[in-house]
C-alpha cells in the first residue's frame, strides 16, 4: 500500500537557516521522514499536525514543516502544547525544544506535562549549550564545561533528561543521536503511537559553540562500542559485530563480551520497554560511556491513562448527569425570586 504523503509533503518552502553541519538538520529530516508513516498509523491527515516550539535554534523547526506551527516564547512550548492538546485532542501535537529552553526556563512546564501524561510528542534537542545566545552553559552542560559564562568551568552538575522524565512519572523516553536518521525515524514513529507524553532526547551537535560535545560516543570509530540501540523484546547487544551484551550482576548492569568469561547469549538481557517498573529503565538511562554504552532507542514506553482521556471522560460523565443544559438554565439555577 502506498502512503498518502511523502517526506516532501512536510517540507515548507522556507529556507532552512541553521548553521551548516548543525545536528538539527538531520533531526528535521528524520521528523519529515517519520510523518507520512505517523499519518498512516494514526489515520490523520497533514492538517491535523501541529508543531509547537519555544525559543532557541531548534525552535525554528516549525517554520520548516509544512504543517500548522507555533513558534512561541522561551520555555513555554510545553505549556502551549498542553493547552492546544487539551482543547483539541484530535490533533497530533509535536514539540521542538532545546535543553536550555525545556529544562531551564521551561523546566516547570516540562515536568508537569510529563506528570499529567498529556498526549504530546516532545523532541528535546540536547546540544548541551545555549546556541542562539552564542555559547553559554545549559542545564545539561557537563560539570566543568568552559563556556562564555563559565570561563573557568561550570561548578554545577547537569541534568540527565531521561532521569528527570522518570522522576516526573514519564511514560515514554527515547534517545537518539542526531545523525542516525534511521533510528530517530523509528523513535518518532513509536513516540506517535504512544498514548501519553513522549520525550525523545536528540543528542545534537552544535558545530559553532559546542562542537564535539557528544563525539565521545557519536564519533564513527567509537559509536558501536559506546552506544547501544535498544528495541523492545530484543537482546541488549552492541559492538561492531554485536559481540557485546548487557547482563545483570549483583543488581547492576554490566557490559560483557558474549563467549568470554563464561557469558553466553542467554545471559544477555532482553529489553522490556513496556514494564511499568522503573528499575531497569533507570539504570539504562543512566548508563555512561566508556564504562557502559549510552542507551539509544526507545528505553521506556509504558501504558497509563492520559490527561486527554481523563478530561474527556469526566466531560462526558458530567454532561450525562447534568441538570443544566444551557446558559439560561444556568442563570436560573439555585435560589431565585420573583419581583411582580
Amino acid at each position, binding site marked *: 500500500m502506498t502512503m498518502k504523503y511523502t517526506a516532501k509533503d512536510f517540507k515548507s518552502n522556507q529556507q532552512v537557516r541553521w548553521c551548516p553541519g548543525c545536528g538539527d538538520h538531520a533531526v528535521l529530516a528524520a521528523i519529515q521522514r517519520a510523518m507520512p508513516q505517523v499519518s498512516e498509523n494514526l489515520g490523520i491527515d497533514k492538517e491535523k499536525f*501541529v508543531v509547537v516550539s519555544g525559543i532557541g535554534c531548534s525552535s525554528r523547526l516549525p517554520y520548516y514543516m509544512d504543517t500548522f*506551527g507555533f*513558534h*512561541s516564547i522561551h520555555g513555554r512550548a510545553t505549556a*502551549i502544547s498542553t493547552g492546544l492538546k487539551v*482543547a483539541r485532542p484530535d490533533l497530533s501535537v509535536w514539540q521542538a525544544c532545546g535543553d536550555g529552553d525545556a529544562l531551564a526556563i521551561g523546566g516547570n512546564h516540562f515536568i*508537569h506535562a510529563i506528570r499529567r501524561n498529556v498526549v504530546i510528542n516532545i523532541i528535546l534537542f540536547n546540544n548541551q549549550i545555549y546556541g542562539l545566545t552564542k555559547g553559554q552553559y545549559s542545564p545539561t552542560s557537563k560539570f566543568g564545561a568552559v563556556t562564555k559564562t563559565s570561563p573557568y568551568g561550570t561548578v554545577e552538575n547537569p541534568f540527565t533528561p531521561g532521569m528527570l522524565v522518570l522522576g516526573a512519572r514519564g511514560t515514554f523516553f527515547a534517545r537518539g543521536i542526531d545523525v542516525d536518521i534511521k533510528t530517530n525515524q523509528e523513535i518518532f514513529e513509536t513516540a506517535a503511537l504512544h498514548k501519553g507524553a513522549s520525550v525523545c532526547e536528540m543528542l545534537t551537535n552544535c558545530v559553532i559553540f559546542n562542537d564535539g560535545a557528544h563525539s565521545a560516543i557519536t564519533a564513527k570509530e567509537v559509536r558501536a562500542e559506546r552506544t547501544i540501540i535498544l528495541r523492545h523484546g530484543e537482546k541488549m547487544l552492541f559492538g561492531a559485530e554485536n559481540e557485546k551484551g548487557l547482563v545483570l550482576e549483583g543488581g547492576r548492569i554490566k557490559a560483557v563480551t558474549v563467549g568470554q568469561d563464561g557469558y553466553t547469549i542467554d545471559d544477555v538481557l532482553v529489553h522490556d520497554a513496556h514494564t511499568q517498573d522503573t528499575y531497569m529503565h533507570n539504570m539504562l538511562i543512566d548508563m555512561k560511556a566508556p564504562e557502559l554504552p549510552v542507551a539509544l532507542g526507545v528505553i521506556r514506553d509504558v501504558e497509563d491513562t492520559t490527561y486527554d482521556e481523563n478530561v474527556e471522560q469526566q466531560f462526558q460523565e458530567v454532561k450525562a448527569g447534568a441538570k443544566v443544559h444551557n446558559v439560561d438554565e444556568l442563570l436560573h439555577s439555585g435560589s431565585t*425570586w420573583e419581583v411582580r
Partner: protein
Amino acid sequence: MTHQVIDAKDVVIRFAGDSGDGMQLTGTLFADASALYGNEISTFPDYPAEIRAPQGTVSGVSGFQVHVGREGVNTPGDFCDVLVAMNPAALKANAKWAKPTATIIVDIDSFDADGMEKAGFTTDNPFTELKVEDRNIICAPISTLTKESLKDSGLDPKSILRSKNMFTLGMCFFMFNRPLEYTYAYLEKKFGKKKPQLVEPNKKVLFDGYNYAANIQAIANTYTIAPADLPKGTYRNINGNQATAWGLIAAAEKSGLQLFCGSYPITPATGILEELALHKNLNVKTMQAEDEIAGICTAIGAAYGGALAVTTTSGPGLSLKSEAMGLAVITELPLVIVDVQRSGPSTGIPTKTEQTDLMQALYGRNGECPVCIVAAHSPSDCFNAAFNAAKLAVEHMMPVILMTEGFLGNGSEPWKIPSMKDYPEIVPPFAVASEEKFKPFERDPRTFVRKWAVPGKAGLEHRVGGLEKNPAGVISSDPENHAYMVEQRARKIAAVADFIPELEVMGEESGELLIVGWGGTYGHLYTAAKELQAEGRSVSLAHFDYINPLPKNTAEVFGRFKKILVCELNSGQFANYLRGCLPQFKYDQYNKVQGQPFIVKEIVDAASKML
C-alpha cells in the same frame, strides 16, 4: 422603654468577629434573606489574608458589611447602623465604622481579661476607650446562651460554640423583621444529607437568638425595610467572580466555541476558576496550571486550537503573564485575561481591593504592545463585562484584559436575570481555504482584523509565533515591515472604538463638575453624584467601562464641563492615562490607596471643594 418599629429606607449592618467565627457566612445569610425578601442589597466582605490569623487579635478580624434597602443601595454603605462584634478585637477594629446613632451588639462573654488583652485594650472599658459609649450598646452573653440553647443537642462543646454566629444572626433577624424561613431552608440544604445532626440545632439556636432579642427589651427600635421597587422579573444574588465566570460561559455559548480556562489559584481571582470548573456540562474545560505563566500559555495554545480561551489572575499573576500577553498580541489570537485587582505592590495586602493595576494592564509589556482593556463596574456587571470582553477578543482577534477588583469579585448584589436571547451573537472570523496560499496577517481593511485559521482545516497550514512577520506570515526583520506591523496592530485596537458604546453622562449633559471614574468605584461615585445633584449642585458622573480604546465621544463629553475630577483607588493612574490621551483637559484627582473602597462622603467632600 417603648419599642418603636421604624420604617427605614436603608440600613447598614456590619458583622465582625474572629476569622473562625463564621462572619462571612452570617453576613451572606443575612444578605440573601434580605434579597429574597425583596430588598436591594450590596455586600462587602473585608477579611484578613490569613485563614486562621492569631485568635482574638485585631489582625485576625473578619468583617462582612451588608447594605439593605428599599432604594438607593449602590454601595455596601460607608458607616453602619448596626455593628455586631463577636469579640473585643472585632469591636476595636470596627468601632470607627459605627454611626453616632448605631446599635452595637457584642458577645460580652468574650470580653474577659484575656480577650481584652489580646485585642490590646489598656483599660477595662472598651466602649469608653473607643469613644463609643454613647451608642446603643447591647451586651449579650451570646456564647453562654448558645451553650444553654444547645445543651441537649448531643453536639460536642466545640460544635455548639461554633453555632454562636447563628444566635447572632437570629438577633439581627428580629431587629430587622426578617423571616427565618430562608435560612431554615439553607441549613436543611447545606447539612441535610451530609450532617443531618446539625440541621435542628442550628435552626434552634437561630430561633432562640431571635426570641432572645425579642425578649430582652434592650432593643429599643426594630426596623422594617420595605421591599424595593424593582423592575419585574426573576432575580438572584450574584457575586462578581461568579458573574465573570458566567459571562464567559455565555460568550462561549453565543460564539459556539468551547470555553478553555487555564489558570493558577490566586486571591481574589480563584473563585472564577472554581466556578468554571463546575460547568463542564456547558462545554467548559478548565486546567489548573502549574504556574501563572502556564495558565496563560495553555490558554494561548487553546486559542490557537480554536477555543474561546481565558486565563484569570490578580496583579502579581498579571506580572508573570506579561511576556505571554505579548505573544498573544503579536500572534493576534483571541484571549481574555481577567485581572481581579488587589492591593499591591508585590503580595501587598492580598485580600484588599484596589485599582492599582491599570498602568500594568496598559503598558506592562515589552515592545509596542497595545491591549484592549474592559472594566466591570459592579458585581453583576461582571457578567456583561466578561461577555463583552470575550466578544471583542474573538471578533477582533486580540487579547483583552478584563479588569475587575476584589471588591467586585467578592461583593454581591441582586441581579435581574437576563435572557440570552437579548445578547448578540459572537461571530469568530474563521478563515476559509482558497486556491491562494493562506496569509495569516492579511487584514480586514476597516477593522484590521486577521482571519483565524484553526488546525484541522486543510489548505490553511501556516506558522505563527513571537518573531515579527510580514502580512504573508513569513519572518521579517525588515525595518519598514516592522513599523507597518506595529502600526497595524495599534490601529486594530483603535478601531475597536467603533464597536463599543459611547460614554454616558449621569446627570446634566454639561455643567460645573464632571466626576470621572472607572471600574468598581461606580456605586460610590454614583451615590455621591446623586447626593450632590439632590443638593442642587452642578455635578455629573462619567464612568468608564472601556479603558482602551476610550469611547469615541470622550473628548466631546469632557469638553462640556468646566472641571473634571478623576476619582480612583490608586495614585492617579487613570488620570495620568487621560492626560496622555486627551491632554487638552485639566484633570483634578481624588485618590485613595488604603486597600479599602471609597466611602461616599469623601467623594462628596472632594467634589464640593471644587464647586
